[in-house]
């Protein structure tokens, strides 16, 4: 499904949302949520292709795969947090969106801990104590 289909799909969905919004605002929010889900389901094949290329490059450069895996997980968490935060902001709940973003940051930091510790250890090894 190429780019133009995706944009037209989103435009159709937004028109449908406007129609359904006056009578049933809850189902209109579901419509927005479903459109976001479908668009990302389409994108995920291309994203997995990109990630396959990234992992191919790292294995060729025989880097430690743990770092790349953490980066991919962080990208995933960042996207989900942003997706959830935007959806709740669409529903009109700005405070809840901020909470979701905070949770996303906490989990990203959680993932980054091993990398930070390894960086600090390597730096300490350089210092001739």
């Amino acid at each position, binding site marked *: *499904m190429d780019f133009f*289909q995706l944009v037209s*799909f989103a435009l*159709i*969905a937004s028109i*449908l949302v406007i*129609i*359904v919004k006056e*009578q*049933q605002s*809850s*189902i*209109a929010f*579901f*419509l927005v*949520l*479903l*459109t976001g*889900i*479908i668009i*990302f*389901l*389409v994108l*995920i094949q291309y*994203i*997995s292709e990109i*990630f396959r290329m990234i992992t191919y490059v790292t294995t060729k450069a025989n880097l430690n795969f743990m770092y790349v*895996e953490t980066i*991919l*997980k962080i*990208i*995933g*968490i960042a*996207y*989900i947090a942003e997706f959830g935060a935007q959806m709740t902001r669409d529903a009109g709940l700005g405070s809840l969106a901020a909470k979701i973003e905070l949770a996303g940051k906490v989990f990203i930091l959680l993932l980054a801990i091993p990398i930070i510790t390894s960086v600090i250890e390597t730096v300490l090894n350089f210092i001739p104590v």
Partner: protein
Amino acid sequence: MIVDASLLFQIAGIGIVVAMIHTVLKQMGKEDLAHWATLIGFIIVLFIVIENLAELFQQIKSVFLFQ
């Protein structure tokens, strides 16, 4: 894409039909039945959307190398 678009139109259709049923039942004087009909329409849409959400999160877990 056609399947996704049809899914979208189905949900919009359910929303409109539920709204019409609600107003019709309200004019007939059966206020509580109208609320029940709205609730059932809401639950149907909830199932459809949650199913898609579960599939999305499953794919994300596999692509982003979550455990």
